[in-house]
């Protein structure tokens, strides 16, 4: 027996439950509109995309050169402190300052964002795909397939993410492999919670009439899984993907901090903090810029995830103010 009720990501509401369904809009459209109503989440999403575009374009990506004048590896004459000034606004030569040996810190931070975002997206994406497939198959077929897959999940879930991440990171690092390999390896050990959620979802969805109808119509198992059930479970998948992505960026920073993540001369936000933690009280900008972006990125992703959750499952919002006042009044009367 294993129990799978997750209240943070509640089960898919039934379509007829939804009062706005009568308007006749498609479900996707409804969700999209509800998401747009959540201003914080929309702003977060926009900001998140902007930061990524900014970071990737600044130092260039792969063969494409960036628009920023300094590279993250070349040394410059030492100037030290950030030249950024907000009023009157001017960037100066090294807006984020320079590190110990004179590398432009803006370039380093942007490169760090790139790598951290790559890790985040690969873990969020690949981890979600693997988790979804495993969860879907387990939940759909039940029986021994389910038992075997879920025991495998249990095996991996026993080991805390940072522990197995450190082991994997150590392997990737000591064999000199880059950020892509690291993040793919990390993704392969971060799919477990999604697999569990998707399985629970499938267990309940597979009993529905529309699945039965598809089966009677002669649809193949794969078709039922991916065309009929999965679209109904997409809410759970997307919401947990954002949560996974948010925790991935923290996992990467934690690993780099311990020395098991991305290694120099490459850059990552966690690595920058770890390298410069001794600069905390002396050259605080070396510490605070990467810290700002770690917290910022994680916060933005979390807000987007929160907006998505509300959009997919609006039930939590229906606890109305009026009702709340009733409760407070009764509590007040009683006490």
């Amino acid at each position, binding site marked *: 027996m294993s129990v799978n009720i997750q209240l943070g990501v509640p089960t898919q509401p039934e379509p007829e439950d939804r009062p706005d369904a009568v308007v006749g809009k498609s479900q996707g459209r409804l969700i999209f509109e509800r998401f747009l109503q959540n201003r914080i989440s929309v702003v977060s999403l926009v900001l998140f995309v902007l930061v990524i575009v900014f970071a990737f374009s600044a130092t260039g990506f792969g063969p494409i050169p960036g628009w920023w004048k300094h590279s993250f590896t070349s040394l410059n004459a*030492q100037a030290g402190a950030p030249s950024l000034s907000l009023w009157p606004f001017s960037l100066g030569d090294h807006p984020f300052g320079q590190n110990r040996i004179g590398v432009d810190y803006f370039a380093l931070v942007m490169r760090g964002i790139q790598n951290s975002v790559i890790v985040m997206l690969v873990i969020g994406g690949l981890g979600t795909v693997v988790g979804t497939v495993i969860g879907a198959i387990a939940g759909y077929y039940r029986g021994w397939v389910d038992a075997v897959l879920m025991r495998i999940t249990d095996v991996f879930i026993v080991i805390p993410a940072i522990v197995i991440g450190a082991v994997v990171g150590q392997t990737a690092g000591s064999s000199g492999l880059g950020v892509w390999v690291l993040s793919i390896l990390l993704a392969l050990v971060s799919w477990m919670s999604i697999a569990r959620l998707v399985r629970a979802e499938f267990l309940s969805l597979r009993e529905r009439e529309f699945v039965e109808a598809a089966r009677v119509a002669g649809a193949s198992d794969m078709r039922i899984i991916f065309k009929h059930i999965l679209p109904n479970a997409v809410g759970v998948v997307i919401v947990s993907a954002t949560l996974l992505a948010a925790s991935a960026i923290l996992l990467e920073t934690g690993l780099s901090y311990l020395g098991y993540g991305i290694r*120099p001369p490459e850059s990552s936000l966690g690595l920058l903090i770890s390298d410069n933690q001794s600069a905390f009280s002396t050259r605080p900008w070396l510490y605070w810029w990467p810290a700002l972006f770690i917290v910022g990125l994680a916060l933005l992703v979390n807000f987007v995830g929160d907006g998505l959750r509300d959009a997919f499952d609006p039930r939590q919002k229906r606890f109305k103010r009026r009702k709340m006042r009733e409760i407070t009044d009764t509590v007040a009367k009683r006490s």
Partner: protein
Amino acid sequence: MTNTNRWARRSAAAVAAAGVTALVLAGCTTGGTEGGDDAAEGGTITVAVTNEVTSLNGSTPQGNLDTNGMVGYLTGTTGSSGGASLGGFYTLDEEFNIVHNDNIGTYEKTADDPLTVEYKLNDGLKWSDGEDITADDLLVGWAIGSGYYNDATLDEATGEPTSGTQYFQLAGSTDGLDTTAMPEISEDGLGLTLVYGEPFVDWELGNLLDKPAHVLAEQAGVTEEEFIQVLMDTPKGDPANPVEPNETLKAAADFWNTGYDFTSMPTDESLLVASGPFIMSDYTPNQSMTFSKNPEYTGEDVPAYDELVLRFVPDANAQVTALQNGEVNAIYPQASADTLTALENANQTVIEGDQLSYDHLDLNFGSEVFADANVREAFLKTIPRQQILESIITPINPSAEVLNSQIFVPANTEYTDAVAASGYDAYAEPDIEGAKELLAGATPTIRILYNTDNPNRVDSFQAIQASATEAGFIIEDAGSPDWSSLLPGGEYDASIFGWISPGAGNSALAQIFKTAGGGNYNKYSNAEVDEMVDAAQTELDPEALGQLKVQIDAATAADFYGLPLFQSPGLFATNGTVDGIEFFGNQTGIVWNAQDWTIAE
């Protein structure tokens, strides 16, 4: 009736409960308060150090770590392999000159040919457990340091003895002492005379006070007299004719090899026996080690306080915060510019200096690209040594200078002569034009090996890469966290790494510069240099020795051996609660004058 019965039963239960309560309470209370902690009157000094203690014997290969060395220095049973200690025959001063330790005894050279050294212990010395320190202990120290009884033939590849027995496993070498004959013990049982088979340059480093004879004897299951008799009777080992190992000697050696390693406070107090002013009194794994005064110590290095605590804090920032917060009185962190500034911002007293280790760039003479001397010279001309120094070392030590010798440091008197002879000072700034001329349009590819986990090496590499590329070199990054295992392999053209020197002695010369020397990773070979190195090992005249070393330095420079980069900086700091802390650059580090510290009022 029922009512009274119920009450009777209830009161009986209550009485029983009260009785049990009283019993339990009596059982699990303590004898009374001790009224706070038991810190003694003279006070405690706490010092944060980076690494853990793992063994009370720092002379074995696995025990040869810096903090173990500190423990040996304070408690004084280091032996000839462990070197200077407060409880041994010599210590080192700030300039790394050997200072004979009068608190223990005297030793002097009485003849040059054959080289004869006389050791004499002070009368009335006692180990911390009350046993006398006698020439028997010196004989044991000699037996350990000379490898006299070893008859093992070691397999080149695995290091396993293919025949015979290797008794005491030393981190250092037995060079020098291995030529001595069985020593003679004087009539009064306090003196010992060593006769060397050939002259030995470092005879002054022969500290014969190792672990106590009576402790090793006890561990081998014999009395001290029997043990000494075994030492005297066992013939010198001959690898050509290995014999059955001597059981007693083997048992004692096995204990010496591993018995002093520990992970919790040893229950066997004989392990703690000390000859120096301090004795280990408490140990919390991974946290701290406490030393108190050795009650039997009669010398002058008695500390003015009661307890010295070493706390193991790996993280330099944690050390700084702890110092600032008063949890420790002094710290010995890994030096970095940020640590220094953090300390200065927190208004702590910083004591800076140069450590006896230096980073250097070596060219691999086994690689094809450097077979041409012009390419070697051209490459060396591109190294921006001044820039590397300024970006890495100057922030920590503003008065630091580029190191211009592979053998001496500026504190040595021979340094100026060596620089004049080798001409390393010409390489301070890169000479890109000169390098281009020498290359004559060629664009050799250079693979540079370095430790990617060491930020200083990464920075050096990046600076060299940027500069050498300008002259037309193609620099490949061959850096790896596994650099040390790649070092002997030779799959690189140049390497950046560091040597650590003990400060006194000349054993490094043969290791590094002699053909096929153990530390000669870059396959350097020059018959003339080999000869000079051999001559230096048996040179007893300090003046002539200095000249030889200057010549070796110059000869290697003429072959474009490589370039010394900088001497690593070191720093200690205190929050003003301790007086008397002074800088010292070898591995003993901050505790080198712990006996002179005082608690500030």
